[in-house]
């Protein structure tokens, strides 16, 4: 009797199994869609954001510019008008509004260059950085203090007072030299330049020693 009942139930087993599978598949359709959940985990984003690793100082950027470091690009996130007024040499203009455009992504989402974002302050640049970081773009940094800091440190460095340590004077002279590179002219520099006639750097001729031709060896 019992066996019969079991047999009856077992006769339906495939249908039942199939029904359960279909139900489960239906459940998967009902799962919420996380399309808006693009990018890295919010917790991770927070820990990235609160560390100050992303900042790069104006001194470092100046040095990179002077050395013509090919491995980095500067991106100006201010609007076009500000960009036309003044920008760092060779900077690319990507206004904040266009940050996520397809064309901008080629500059931001790549791994050959270090990208330095800057604006007048680091307010807009930070915002751009946070969005990029959420999308997982790598090698992006922010110019600490932006162009305002660029002006006060590199373009118009403050002369250290007498009681400051020697490092401050070294830093000042470095920055002053850097500011000359970026176009600022100091009165004392002009005097020197005026009195001096242009001396062309002597051409150095580097001779390359020719390899002696080897006489063919051997043979008979």
């Amino acid at each position: 009797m019992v066996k019969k009942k079991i047999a009856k139930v077992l006769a339906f087993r495939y249908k039942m199994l199939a029904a359960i599978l279909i139900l489960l598949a239906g459940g998967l359709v009902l799962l919420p869609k996380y399309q808006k959940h693009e990018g890295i985990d919010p917790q991770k984003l927070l820990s990235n954001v609160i560390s100050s690793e992303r900042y790069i100082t104006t001194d470092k950027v100046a040095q990179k510019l002077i050395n013509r470091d090919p491995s980095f690009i500067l991106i100006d996130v201010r609007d076009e008008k500000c960009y036309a007024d003044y920008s760092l040499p060779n900077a690319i203009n990507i206004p904040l509004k266009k940050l996520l455009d397809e064309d901008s992504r080629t500059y931001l989402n790549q791994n050959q260059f270090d990208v330095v974002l800057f604006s007048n302050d680091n307010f807009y640049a930070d915002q751009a950085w946070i969005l990029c970081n959420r999308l997982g773009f790598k090698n992006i940094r922010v110019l600490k203090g932006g162009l305002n800091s660029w002006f006060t440190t590199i373009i118009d460095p403050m002369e250290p007072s007498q009681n400051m340590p020697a490092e401050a004077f070294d830093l000042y002279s470095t920055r002053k030299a850097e500011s000359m590179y970026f176009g600022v002219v100091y009165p004392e520099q002009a005097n020197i330049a005026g009195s001096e006639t242009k001396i062309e750097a002597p051409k150095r001729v580097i001779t390359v020693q020719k390899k002696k031709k080897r006489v063919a060896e051997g043979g008979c």
Partner: protein
Amino acid sequence: MKELEKTKRISIAAVLFILAVLIGLLTYERPKHLYAINTKSTLEKLTSDDYLITLNDLNDPDQVLIDVRSQFEFEKGHLENAINIYTPDILSDENSDIFEELKETNKTVVLYGKNPQEVNPPFLILYQLGFDNIKMLAIENSYLQNKLITKNSEIERSEADITTFINESRENASMPIAEEVVSAPKKIITFKKKKKVAEGGC
């Protein structure tokens, strides 16, 4: 007999499969924090500028001030009726509850810190998590003889006109402006990353 063996195996496999799926569904844990707003709409919000308010706008009783500085600085001095939630703690359970509750009661959350730059991270993270009742107070806090001084600050103000400064320095040095150092333009070659086609799943 052989046929029976085969069907038995199939049914065992099917049962195991269903069990695996069930276990998967039961142990599925919803991530604690989920973005509710994608980057595109966040960017639109950022460029609209209506998230910034100044000290003069602070008179609505529906506004709740939140100080994102550390507890130490908060205790040294803070705005009236402000709550202290330090930036690294904004995603902790109890603080999430606070934000959740403020959103439900239709209050406007006003974040402030030492300067607007400092408020950027908590503001952006909370906004992207879907708290759209959030604003940023554009102020600068400093201390004078241990007394908190708060003043409005203009965001992204250009402090100096660098082009004019450089030209003036040339004039002062009686150097012609004409010759301008033009550094060779840098050629930047970028390669488009291929978009990954969405992999399966749902």
